[in-house]
């Protein structure tokens, strides 16, 4: 593996985009770049440009809390995210990059009888569809994570949890760079500072994009624009089932002891893990107003700190170092949208909300296959855009809610 300092030097070639490609991908986040990577490496389609309006990873792919897990609540999601877990487990080897991928195990704690029932159901459905999740008692929780206060500060007593041993984290910007570099090694062009300002349409099909650096034609355009996907839809006359909500996160200073697992609580809508530097990284639920503002708020700090300290009293002695925000593309059913659209040649990967980092490998793999063959592979087929019209929504709020 290369050393980290070398990794920062990605050899971008700062030339102008060409006037035509087979595929133009709008958005240099994890999903756009992974799709380019799999198009080039699995399907031999390398005449591809990724157009990023800022720098790659500037969106949510460089702002998230990096939780990787497959303990979702519906069969379609469990299967899909389990595939992504497995691709992540091999990604360092495949890309020859140190992604700081670490399997840590994840505890999802329940504080009430309904919560316990929900976690038992999660364990059952996960096991049935290929993810490893088991129900654990408070005594077992104390063994896995001795820092948990089982009395929940007298407010949220710990009644049980599910344990998901394959829960993991990885360094987010390294994942973005690894996919970008891997794609470029196979001939893909990545152009930063290149916003797409319009879509070129001819009848019912897309023929290219407009940019300040000139028009670019393409037979296929993929919108992978994160929280800004609605604007791209509008350029094609499409209305999308997406609302953009801010999601905040925070990190503390260094905690000198090791904190092994990722710990989440559905009742408290809060989760925490330790970074490689020893900082405690935590997140919670989305802000209630749809918004594109990156402003961070005091309320988030206050309630996150309160919940965190109640469950993990040692956090009391730490200090908040940083707080930040990303703009999440929330879907109505809390499931992603990986799909063709009514506009021929125009594809979407969106609805990644607060949960799409873990999905970057499997999402990119699935979208590349869809673009290359015109048919959605089985794993992503349920996540089509037309599911809303067909009354086949994939409600998964309980497990997608926060991370």
């Amino acid at each position, binding site marked *: 593996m290369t050393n980290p300092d070398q990794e920062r030097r990605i050899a971008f070639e700062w030339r102008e985009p060409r006037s035509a490609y087979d595929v133009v991908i709008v958005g240099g986040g994890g999903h756009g770049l992974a799709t380019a990577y799999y198009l080039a490496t699995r399907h031999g389609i390398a005449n591809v440009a990724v157009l990023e309006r800022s720098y790659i990873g500037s969106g949510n792919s460089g702002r998230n809390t990096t939780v990787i897990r497959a303990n979702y609540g519906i069969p379609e999601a469990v299967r899909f995210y389990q595939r992504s877990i497995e691709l992540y487990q091999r990604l360092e080897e495949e890309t020859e990059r140190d992604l700081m991928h670490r399997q840590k195990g994840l505890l999802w704690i329940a504080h009430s009888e309904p919560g316990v029932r929900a976690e038992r159901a999660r364990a059952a459905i996960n096991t049935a569809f290929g993810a490893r999740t088991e129900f654990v008692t408070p005594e077992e929780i104390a063994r896995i994570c001795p820092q948990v206060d089982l009395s929940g500060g007298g407010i949220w007593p710990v009644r049980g949890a599910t344990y998901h041993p394959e829960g993991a984290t990885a360094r987010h910007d390294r994942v973005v760079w690894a996919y970008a570099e891997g794609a470029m090694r196979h001939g893909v062009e990545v152009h930063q500072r290149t916003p797409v300002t319009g879509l070129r349409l001819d009848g019912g099909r897309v023929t290219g994009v407009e940019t300040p650096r000139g028009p670019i034609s393409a037979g296929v355009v993929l919108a992978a624009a994160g929280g*800004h996907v609605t604007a791209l839809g509008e350029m094609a006359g499409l209305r999308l089932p997406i609302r953009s909500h801010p999601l905040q996160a925070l990190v503390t200073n260094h905690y000198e002891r090791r904190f092994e697992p990722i710990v989440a609580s559905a009742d408290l809508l809060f989760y925490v893990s330790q970074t490689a530097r020893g900082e405690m990284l935590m997140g919670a639920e989305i802000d209630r107003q749809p918004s594109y*503002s990156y402003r961070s708020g005091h309320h988030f700090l206050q309630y996150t700190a309160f919940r965190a300290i109640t469950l993990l009293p040692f956090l009391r002695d730490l200090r908040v170092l940083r707080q930040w925000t990303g703009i999440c593309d929330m879907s109505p059913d809390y499931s992603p949208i990986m799909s063709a659209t009514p506009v021929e040649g125009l594809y979407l990967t969106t609805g990644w909300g607060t949960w799409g980092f873990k999905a970057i490998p499997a999402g990119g793999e699935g979208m590349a296959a869809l673009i290359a063959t015109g048919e959605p592979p089985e794993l992503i087929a349920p996540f089509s855009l037309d599911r*809303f019209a067909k009354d086949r929504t994939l409600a998964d709020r309980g497990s997608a809610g926060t991370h």
Partner: protein
Amino acid sequence: MSLVIPCPNCGSRPVEEFVYGEVPLVPESITDPDARDLDRAFMHGNPEGPVVERWFHAAGCRRWTTVRRDTRTDQVLG
């Protein structure tokens, strides 16, 4: 600072006291009744810029108010 919502009854209060209410605006161009229902149920304008929305002051006077807000800045517009 998080978002502050001006309540006509209670004055300016933090957003956490309110419940959000989108005003669904189905475009005139959609004429088919089923397509209008679908749009109303699932689709969102999700504008980057000024938006008219409803807020319910759940932890206050428990009345609805209408607010104009710029979603790029969270500034409430007069």
